[in-house]
């Protein structure tokens, strides 16, 4: 305020500062470019590593594309049709991998959404050793998939593993084929994944919980709400944006499962635990059919996009 008055007072003595208007003009010109300049680095990365590969993938998917073969004939939609044609060599493999991925996602996502929420609620209370436990539950997530894969591969071995040994010691069946037969292989894969990644989701929830104003809880308490009421009417609505994030990323992560079954079950029995991403890798890099692998990737990406959209729609609807 004082500045304005001073400026006003000075105006009569001196012409408006020469730079005044001009400077504002400069700032405006600057401000028009500034957002784009800030966006540029990411845009560059997105175009290079996001957009161009997608377009290139679309191009690949309508060709029979081998990196080394000199002719890469245009095959139209053949690569896509093969995925839906029960006579093609790839049909069985493709749909068995879709089924494997679907089973894994359907069973792992609910657990990975609910268990971390429970963990976060517990870890959000104050009790001695809280920081220690927060670290303990997050710890497995720090390990790479190769480490946890190999570790559990041997722990779960039907004949030599520690898990069956311990089960036997307490009088339970000691010959469960944890990694070589279904449904046990799915129990193992989902269980290991929940153990491995719950900590990450729990940390996200924890941050969300700490964002909910304590006043809301106090108000609810004053209104006579009990613990369950407070959870339903304060905690859950407060966590809604966080939940949307957790659910979406968890579905995508589960659908992209590869390392666990690659290392722990090696696809056994037969190819029943071979997942879509694994199939795409094999098709493109091992069997040298980049066109077909690209077609698979695109179909898979479209399916995941639809699922994510439904997910967003569902949460928005709830919010209304």
């Amino acid at each position: 305020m004082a500045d304005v008055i001073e400026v006003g007072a000075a105006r009569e003595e001196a012409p408006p500062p020469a730079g005044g208007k001009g400077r504002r003009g400069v700032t405006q010109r600057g401000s028009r470019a500034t957002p784009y300049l800030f966006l540029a680095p990411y845009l560059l990365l997105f175009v290079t590593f996001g957009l161009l590969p997608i377009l290139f993938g679309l191009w690949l998917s309508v060709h029979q594309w081998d990196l080394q073969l000199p002719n890469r004939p245009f095959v139209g939609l053949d690569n896509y049709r093969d995925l839906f044609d029960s006579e093609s060599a790839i049909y069985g493999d493709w749909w068995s991998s879709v089924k494997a991925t679907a089973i894994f996602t359907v069973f792992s996502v609910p657990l990975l959404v609910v268990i971390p929420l429970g963990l976060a609620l517990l870890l959000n209370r104050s009790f001695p050793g809280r920081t220690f436990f927060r670290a303990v539950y997050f710890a497995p997530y720090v390990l790479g998939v190769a480490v946890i894969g190999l570790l559990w591969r041997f722990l779960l071995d039907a004949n030599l593993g520690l898990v069956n040994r311990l089960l036997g010691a307490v009088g339970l069946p000691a010959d469960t084929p944890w990694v070589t037969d279904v449904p046990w292989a799915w129990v193992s894969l989902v269980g290991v994944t929940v153990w491995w990644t719950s900590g990450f989701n729990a940390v996200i929830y924890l941050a969300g919980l700490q964002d909910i104003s304590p006043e809301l809880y106090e108000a609810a308490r004053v209104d006579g709400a009990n613990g369950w009421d407070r959870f339903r009417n304060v905690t859950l609505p407060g966590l809604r944006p966080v939940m949307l994030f957790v659910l979406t990323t968890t579905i995508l992560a589960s659908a992209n499962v590869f390392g666990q079954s690659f290392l722990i079950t090696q696809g056994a029995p037969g190819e029943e635990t071979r997942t879509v991403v694994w199939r795409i890798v094999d098709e493109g890099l091992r069997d040298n059919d980049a066109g077909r692998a690209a077609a698979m990737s695109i179909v898979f990406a479209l399916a995941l996009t639809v699922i994510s959209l439904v997910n967003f729609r569902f949460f928005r609807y709830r919010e209304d």
Partner: protein
Amino acid sequence: MIQNELSRRRLLGLGVGLGAAASLTLAGCGGGSATTSGGAAGNGGKDYTGPKVDLKLWNGFTGGDGDIFKKLVQQFNTEHQNIAVAVTTYQWDDYYSKLPGAVSSGNGPDIAVMHMDQLATFAARGVINELDDVAKALELNEGDFAPTVWKGGLYNDKRYGIPLDMHPLGFYYNKSVMQKAGLDPEKPPTTKDDYTAALAELKKAGVQGFWVSPFQFTGGMTFYSLLHQWGGTLFDGEVQKATFNSDPAVEACTWLVDMIKQGYSPANVGQDADYLALKAGKNAFNWNGIWQINDIAKDPNAQIGVAPLPQIGSQPAAWANSHNFTIVKQRAADNNKVSGAKVFINWLSEHSLDWAKGGQIPARKAVREGADFKAIPNVSTLAVELDYAAFPPATPGLGEVILTFYNSFNEAALNKKSPKQALDDGVAKANKQLEDNRKKYGS
């Protein structure tokens, strides 16, 4: 997939992680196929007198053999002032998927080591050069090699690989376990009757003596060997049709799967559990690759013995494969490099006796029959198998088809399907894959 074998051994030997951080990097934007006419450069590897060349060599020798290989390369480098070879080692798993991308982007090696069943695929795809003149200069001919290995290096009647070694499946037995069951540890079984009798004795002593793994390592390769022992083959002579559901194949598969039903093997054996159990004294017999010789040599008690595979079927047979040298085509042909590479291949082939110490049988007959080779324990024991070794056929794109074969066995061994059903289903799929390959490679 043949390419797993050395990383598998490394996993067992060192107990370290697979590190299978399978990089999803689609080695994209391949700028056209590598074209060069360097194939006929030099005088076939007799010598090289041009300016100094730096050569890149890729291999997958991640085990103890890797060190031996590097020492040989060092020796070569000191003996040749104008050729410098630099070695890069990948796990075989990654190796075959990295190589095509690296070559098409101009970052590939000059020399690549390859399994013989991969040669046709890479030759058909124009990744490697013809080497007929090297074979001529080395004065190599069919008589020097096991015929299948020699022919395995040919594609469309041209030579693409110079065989370095051969590695068959061998019979590993735990002497102290045999002793415990009252068997003579110095007399491993060699016939079907001996074999089942020994298993019965072991069972009486409370040992499941022959763990049948459902995976390629080692159950799949065991079945591969038995199928040939029963007189079957995986494919017909022209590799037009899969034949691994023939009567002999079904009988061989049934015999092996029955090991589980008769209680000689636990069900649901995990990957590598068969071999770990052998070393831990819970298993007596294991059919495993020659590369495990390095690993059992580390055992101070030397309780694991090695012998040629017992003959269970009507004829002896053993799974085997072979490492070959290849010269990679470059986008910009450099005849000096090609000549230098040929000199290196020639030199190393002549030093393959030293390579045998890495646990491989030299490809050259003359080296194999020398007294120096016969003095190398265990490795030379398995050399007799070469007379009846069953190498995979050389046809482009066959890698994935052989995986179908291993997967059928997996389903049979895990009792998901009967042997006949599993093999019938596998053959149906394999035939479709073969047809796709014919379209793709035009053969």
